[in-house]
């Protein structure tokens, strides 16, 4: 692909994004709640699109296409298991989180935890934990953009990631959540349209029709249609951490606070559900089609690039922009969420801090966290990939505390110990690469943090003893 063509399309996309972001800035009101959660006034469409764009990163068009190429529909099973669980969790938890966020004036999901468990320490621990897990994950997105620009247009890696940094800071810094949500809506529309056109082109030019594609798949590569292509332990190990993503990852759980009313919340869940199903279907079928057309690709991460080398340049450019858009929309949401958590759950809890200082601090945190992820990407540390893989499993340690919000006997000590126990388990198992009984760290994290949460909560629950005391005193 010509460098000038890539730069031209990239520039058009960036300028459109900047215009949207500038308009969002002009519409922006005052205060921390306005900057970080758009004052809970997002419509259903914008909320659904920002939820989708935040959830689905470049992993879909690069990682999942390659995964489907390698292991067939097991990849679809893993991704749809995530979607099924997320739809169910949102159905149950989103209305409750939305109402509680409004009632207790919560800006971050960690603030909800702090208020429920009456513990500022819990909010600080979860914020630090999220920073440790999500900064490396963000740097992988930077790395992805850097390699993509280098591979497709010959733009040096360092220039590529610097461009990514500028785009991300521009979209986030100016207008806060309103800007992120509106630019995310643009990104998600690009993502879905580009992927639909690409799939149609690949199927129609490669097989003539979907019927022929399914026929070829079933006759020539029946092994790809087996759910057993991936080991069952790996399937469980990959699926379980993602099943609770909607609750454990602050960049998505914070989005439950955004809709302006219950109808918008409902539309957010419905919109995201269909986006997820369609996008997953497209991405997996691209991988399966690639296996039928180019059966000998050795590096699965290069499958998408191989497809793009065989489609018209204009289509390849749009898909390239859609992959960059997926990365940018994920990173800017994470940056904004982490900034809000640092502001509300750490800075805001320092005694004698003037509330008016919170917003400038939060705005300053945006470039700070972005530059931190950039530095990680710049160093290309070998451990980054492992840390980012660890992030979904590590954040799973917070799931019992979030679910336990609605359990009467849950205690702050139970919540804190479960997060520390689950997090430590994941770090130890990933660093030693020891998987007891062949089960992945995410599974062990889920078991240990849940058991710790229940047992410690029951052990430290004073409500029953207090009520007995009250009865005795009354007598």
């Amino acid at each position, binding site marked *: 692909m010509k460098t000038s063509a890539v730069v031209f399309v990239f520039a058009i996309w960036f300028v459109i994004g900047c215009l949207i972001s500038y308009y969002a800035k002009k519409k922006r009101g005052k205060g921390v709640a306005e900057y970080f959660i758009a004052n809970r006034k997002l419509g259903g469409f914008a909320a659904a699109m920002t939820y989708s764009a935040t959830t689905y990163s470049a992993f879909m068009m690069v990682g999942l296409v390659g995964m489907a190429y390698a292991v067939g529909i097991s990849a679809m099973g893993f991704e749809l298991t995530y979607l099924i669980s997320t739809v169910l969790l949102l159905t149950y938890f989103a209305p409750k989180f939305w109402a509680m966020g409004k009632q207790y004036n919560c800006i971050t999901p960690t603030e909800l935890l702090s208020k429920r468990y009456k513990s500022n320490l819990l909010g600080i621990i979860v914020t630090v934990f999220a920073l440790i897990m999500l900064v490396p994950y963000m740097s992988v997105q930077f790395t992805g953009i850097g390699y993509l620009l280098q591979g497709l247009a010959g733009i040096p890696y360092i220039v590529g990631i610097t461009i990514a940094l500028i785009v991300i800071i521009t979209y986030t810094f100016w207008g806060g959540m309103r800007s992120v949500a509106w630019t995310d809506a643009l990104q998600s529309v690009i993502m879905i349209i580009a992927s639909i056109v690409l799939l149609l082109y690949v199927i129609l030019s490669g097989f003539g029709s979907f019927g022929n594609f399914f026929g070829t798949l079933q006759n020539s590569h029946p092994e790809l249609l087996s*759910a057993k292509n991936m080991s069952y332990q790996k399937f469980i190990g990959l699926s379980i951490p993602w099943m609770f993503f909607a609750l454990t990852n602050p960049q998505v759980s914070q989005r439950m606070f955004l809709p302006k009313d219950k109808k918008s919340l409902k539309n957010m869940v419905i919109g995201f559900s269909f986006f997820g199903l369609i996008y997953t279907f497209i991405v997996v079928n691209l991988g399966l089609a690639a296996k039928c057309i180019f059966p000998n690709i050795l590096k699965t991460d290069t499958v998408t690039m191989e497809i793009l080398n065989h489609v018209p340049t204009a289509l390849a450019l749009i898909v390239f922009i859609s992959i960059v858009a997926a990365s940018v929309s994920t990173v800017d949401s994470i940056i904004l969420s982490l900034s809000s958590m640092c502001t509300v759950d750490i800075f805001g809890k320092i005694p004698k801090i003037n509330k008016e200082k919170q917003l400038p601090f939060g705005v300053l945190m945006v470039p700070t966290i972005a530059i931190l992820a950039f530095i990680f990407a710049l160093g290309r540390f070998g451990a980054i990939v492992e840390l980012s893989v660890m992030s979904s499993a590590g954040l799973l340690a917070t799931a019992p505390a979030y679910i336990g919000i609605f359990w009467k006997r849950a205690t702050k000590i139970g919540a804190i110990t479960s997060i520390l126990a689950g997090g430590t388990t994941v770090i130890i198992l990933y660093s030693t690469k020891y998987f007891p009984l062949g089960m992945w760290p995410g599974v062990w994290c889920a078991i240990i943090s849940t058991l710790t949460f229940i047992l410690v909560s029951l052990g430290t629950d004073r409500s029953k003893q207090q009520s007995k005391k009250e009865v005795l005193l009354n007598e």
Partner: protein
Amino acid sequence: MKNAYAKEKKFLAVYLVIVALDFTVPFLLPHKITGAYLFWIILTIITILYGIFSIGRQA
């Protein structure tokens, strides 16, 4: 209070049944388009329809 408890029990039951189906049935189906491929898509659509119905009532 009783109503909330019943809702929680119902959610947990639905969640466990769907996840149990998701983790077992596809691994028993033949290597065909009408096997695990179609099953996972249909299960997702059923879940989404359940979600729309359920959240619609709450909203």
